């Protein structure tokens, strides 16, 4: 992957082994994830697609340490995050989540938002954190709006700032939960290019949940199609499109073939989910 880049990822390999998650074991017993296994290499962009409510976010929450798992283990760089002896992973700055709809703190300016991580971890002084945050925002093209509140900037800028806020912690893994949902196509493609640019620079492992197949193939090294609930891996598509990528990829034949394949795989699950009374694909 990406041989033409001097940075080579050495950290951020996630190993998901036979993970099962059952909600409310005493009550209704909803199985969200069923015996799901997935190996994500260091520095890989792994795109997770599947019907709504299939359990993708459950998996992300387990990695992030927001929810416990019922069975199985998850490892990060060979170290167990969660397993039978410890069902709930510790939350840590090595795995930062970028949430659906964005979760910048509305009461902090962008620069304060970005500087928050290093400040609370006490890895930098306040001045150093602000200085670095300022640099990173400028790098992301947000230098002019660094002093503004999230409510004052566009959703695209806010989302970019949120990724900067994650990156300043030098995480091993970025966990993105449909970050570009409900954005218009034009903003989305700008977001994609900026994320790719960030990736090419940092080679951070990316675990990216989406409904958008074209997004998945444009960004990802692999696209993991999940089954309808309970979630397990149905198909894994390798995306052998060379990096760095730009929007011209979208019109290539290779891209169209991949989208077609992905659609076939997802469609089957979407129909199952629909028939099971689930909400349709967004």
């Amino acid at each position: 992957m990406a041989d033409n880049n001097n940075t080579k990822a050495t950290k951020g390999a996630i190993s998901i082994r036979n993970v099962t998650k059952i909600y409310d074991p005493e009550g209704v017993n909803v199985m969200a994830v069923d015996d799901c296994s997935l190996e994500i290499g260091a520095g890989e962009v792994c795109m997770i697609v599947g019907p709504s409510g299939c359990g993708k976010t459950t998996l992300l929450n387990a990695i992030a340490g927001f929810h416990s798992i019922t069975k199985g283990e998850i490892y990060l760089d060979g170290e167990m995050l969660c397993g039978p002896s410890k069902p709930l992973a510790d939350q840590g700055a090595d795995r930062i989540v970028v949430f659906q709809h964005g979760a910048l703190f509305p009461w902090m300016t962008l620069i304060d938002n970005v500087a928050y991580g290093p400040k609370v971890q006490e890895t930098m002084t306040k001045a150093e954190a602000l200085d670095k945050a300022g640099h990173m925002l400028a790098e992301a093209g947000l230098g002019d709006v660094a002093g503004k509140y999230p409510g004052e900037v566009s959703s695209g800028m806010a989302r970019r700032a949120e990724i900067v806020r994650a990156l300043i912690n030098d995480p091993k893994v970025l966990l993105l939960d449909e970050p570009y949902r409900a954005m218009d196509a034009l903003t989305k493609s700008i977001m994609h290019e900026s994320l790719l640019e960030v990736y090419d620079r940092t080679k951070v492992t990316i675990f990216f949940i989406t409904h958008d197949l074209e997004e998945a193939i444009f960004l990802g090294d692999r696209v993991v199609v999940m089954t309808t609930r309970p979630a397990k891996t149905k198909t894994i598509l390798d995306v052998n499109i060379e990096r760095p990528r730009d929007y011209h990829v979208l019109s290539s034949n290779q891209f169209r073939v991949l989208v077609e394949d992905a659609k076939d795989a997802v469609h089957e699950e979407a129909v199952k989910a629909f028939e099971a009374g689930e909400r349709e694909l967004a």
Partner: protein
Amino acid sequence: MSEAVQNGGTSNGAHSSGEIKPRKKSKLGKALSSKTFWRGVIALVGFVVFWELCSRTYGWTGIQIPWIGKVPPPTEVIYAWSYVIWLPGYWESWYLSSARVFAGFIVAMVLGIPFGLCLAVNKYFYDIFFPPFEVLRPIPPLAWVPASIVFWPTTEMSITFVTFLGAFYTIVINVLGGARSIDIRYLRAAQSMGATQWDLFSKIILPGTLPSIFTGAAVGMGITWEVVLAGEMISGGGQQGGGGLGFFIWSSYMGGTVAQVIVGMISIGIAGYLSSSLIRYIGSISMPWRRLF
């Protein structure tokens, strides 16, 4: 033409100040030329004229218009006011009522905000303190007047206590609701970035609750004014020579004129408006991010 060139050639400071000034003017001009502003002015003037005419009808025609016909006309009220403002007791009443309102209100904030936050953050605290709180909350503050006169040594303290109760429950309920409704994603984001419990509290929960705190404060302030006046009327003002605006109204009713009663009423309206403006102002200073909406 040459003037323009000369202006452009003058120092930068002069140029920029020349640029800012008309902008300020236009803001004021905008307010003065806005239809909303003039509608408001016309409505107020119209109301006063209507009131004056209705009050005077009896004197002119012998026909009394129900309710409003018995109210002294605005001119008489203003005349009464012009007399009252020279009485030290009137201003002392302003001072006393405001002091009681603010004493009760500040104590309610100081106790209510931490109490509400503890209820929101700690389950044990909630389980123990919320049930008694919920039993005491429906008791109207005024129902506490006789009891508080009994168990506080001075009338002053019992009025302040009742005032405190008026604001306390509202503030606590608002803080509790506000702290609980903070988006869990903010808490998760902060925790995953390594926030300690104190960071979470001071940088996420507290600012996230501020809007509710100010909502609670604004509502609580209104209740405080209601309660302090009633308390003053019932307890007889507590002090000689001007016992607060509530006592002022009461004593005007007993021994003065109706015009003075109305003076007292309008004074309270002004005092309440000033108090809530103050809270709004403090709110907008402490929540700069909310000014955008």
